[in-house]
């Protein structure tokens, strides 16, 4: 046991310490701030209060926006899974050798480009007279103009684009580990494609799908850049509201309280799903 204990210690302590210094302690400080009546370092004396948390419940639009952000997160995660899983399946089980490596790289690489520039590029695609519009008119000249920029769908497209690589990647990793002989065996037993998909591939690749969904859902709930630039008057989210508390009015306590409420909601949703996932697929 001692030997194993040492290994665990050596494997986890660096990460533990790193996260403690860089995340836990700063967040603890911020958590403390969220109970202050005024911003620290300001001229006004600050006292402890629960008002910042109460604000969330007293102003109707906060809960409206929180719910909106969660719906957005679910929608984007679902779309990413819908688009990304088949792509990962093709990559992992229909391709091999150099092309598989190359295409996988091509999926991840755009992630290295600047998010702001990517978003501005989307504005050129989605606006009236933009690429989509012109493509539609090239085929159907009489069609009405289709500018979907500055709308809810534009936000969704931008976010799906930002997070799709996560989903493809995590699904790919799980799918790639499935032994093809398992599938051959199933086929030998007379299973059809959709049965194989449902009974073998989906359950076995579920860890990847679940991780992909978490990595998509969680950050989308707090996203502010894509909604703000692509959403027009639809662009307000919980993320932008929190951002404004920090950048516009220097109200760290309220901004922090709102973030912790959002974090709490996200963790609660994940906690609700966790036993379900664990029981069924031995996740984690």
């Amino acid at each position, binding site marked *: 046991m001692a030997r194993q204990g040492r290994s665990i210690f050596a494997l986890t302590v660096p990460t533990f310490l790193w996260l403690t210094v860089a995340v836990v302690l700063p967040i603890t400080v911020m958590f403390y701030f969220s109970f202050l009546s005024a911003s620290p370092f300001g001229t006004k004396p600050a006292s402890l209060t629960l008002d910042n948390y109460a604000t969330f419940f007293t102003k109707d639009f906060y809960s409206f926006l929180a719910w909106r952000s969660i719906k957005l997160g679910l929608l984007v995660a679902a779309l990413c899974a819908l688009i990304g899983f088949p792509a990962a399946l093709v990559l992992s089980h229909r391709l091999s050798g150099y092309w598989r490596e190359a295409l996988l790289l091509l999926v991840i690489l755009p992630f290295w480009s600047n998010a702001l520039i990517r978003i501005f590029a989307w504005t050129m695609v989605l606006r009236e007279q933009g690429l989509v519009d012109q493509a539609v008119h090239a085929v159907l000249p009489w069609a009405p103009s289709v500018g979907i920029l*500055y709308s809810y769908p534009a936000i969704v497209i931008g976010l799906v684009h930002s997070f799709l690589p996560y989903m493809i990647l995590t699904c790919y990793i799980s799918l790639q580990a499935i032994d093809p002989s398992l599938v051959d065996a199933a086929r030998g037993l007379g299973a059809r494609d959709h049965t194989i998909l449902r009974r073998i591939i989906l359950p076995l690749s579920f860890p990847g799908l679940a991780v992909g969904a978490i990595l998509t859902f969680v950050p989308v709930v707090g996203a502010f850049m894509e909604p703000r630039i692509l959403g*027009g008057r639809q*662009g307000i989210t919980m993320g932008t509201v929190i951002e*404004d508390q920090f950048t*516009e*009015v*220097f109200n760290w306590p*309220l901004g922090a309280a709102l973030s912790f409420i959002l974090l709490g909601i996200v963790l609660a949703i994940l906690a609700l799903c966790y036993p379900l996932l664990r029981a069924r697929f031995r996740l984690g």
Partner: protein
Amino acid sequence: MKLVASCALSALAAVAVLVGTQTAALHAADGEVRVLNWKGWGTDEPWAIEAFEKETGLKVVHDYITSFPETFTKLRVNPGYYDVVVLNAAFTQQAAAEGLIQPIDTSTIANFGVLFPDLRDSPELNIDGSNFGVVWMWGGTSVSYNTDVFPEPPTSLEVLWDPKYANRVCWRDDAEDSVRFAALATGQDPDKPADMDKIREKLLALKPQIKALWKSGDEWLKLVSAKECDLSTVWTNNTEAAAVQDKLPISFIVAKEGAIAFRDAMSIAKDAPNVKGAEAFINYMVSVPFYQGWVKVGGAPVSANKEAIEQLPESSLTRTVLAAPEALPRLNFKGPLTDEQRQSYLDLWQEVKASFAQ
């Protein structure tokens, strides 16, 4: 394995180089003037830095902000680092009260005398007899319009609410400006609006008009370039830059209800390591040659220097529309707001935006 090893090695080398660069940056403090400002807001014009460095032998180092609250954060966490800080005059009092900036010995600023006295000696900058900021530039936030759509310039703010331009307004996503515009449009004092419900009503009524809510000058320029907006609320100097540099069909008005104006001033940070250098830099920044240069490259606001103003071309929008004698009385210079006001403005504006999204 070799690949992993070589990756690790190159990364270690990278860390070493990084640490090297950084120490170099932190230790070359002598003979420097450190400026905290928005990026691309005059002080970092390459030709200006070159001229100043040549004249004084001092090196100019810039650090940038993306919002005013950030200025305060940066000053707090880097005490004794910055020399010159560019602040909107509405924030100068607060910075002075928090002890983040120090009084300026105006006798060392040769150009101090030729600044517009109204701007120079306003109570926002001259606090209890001490000058905490030297007024530098001023400009407006107003309504700009597409000159192809409007052969005749509109005259009233009401055009923003005109159903004819539904879905064609690009509004600056800023709580304070939004409230101030709505206050002007409803005939209230933008510094102390009495009827906030009226302002809420007015802003809620914008819903069908709004095409996009923009936050940075860059976003706005891209919107206008793509011909997304017939009307927008925007800084006047950005409008002029778009018209002159990007050749866009655009101009702005000072509406009959008025326009919002801002003043930026230069302050010296508390415990600035190079006060002399800071004074020299401020003096250069309010000089005629600097303004001349900035006007030439375009996008300059209005100088607080009486003599420099003459450098604006006769045809410039800034001169003919904003600084026109008949428009000047309609400008409402932003006064300082209390924290409570800022918070209530933001709450109001967020509530309005939430209803836009419903």
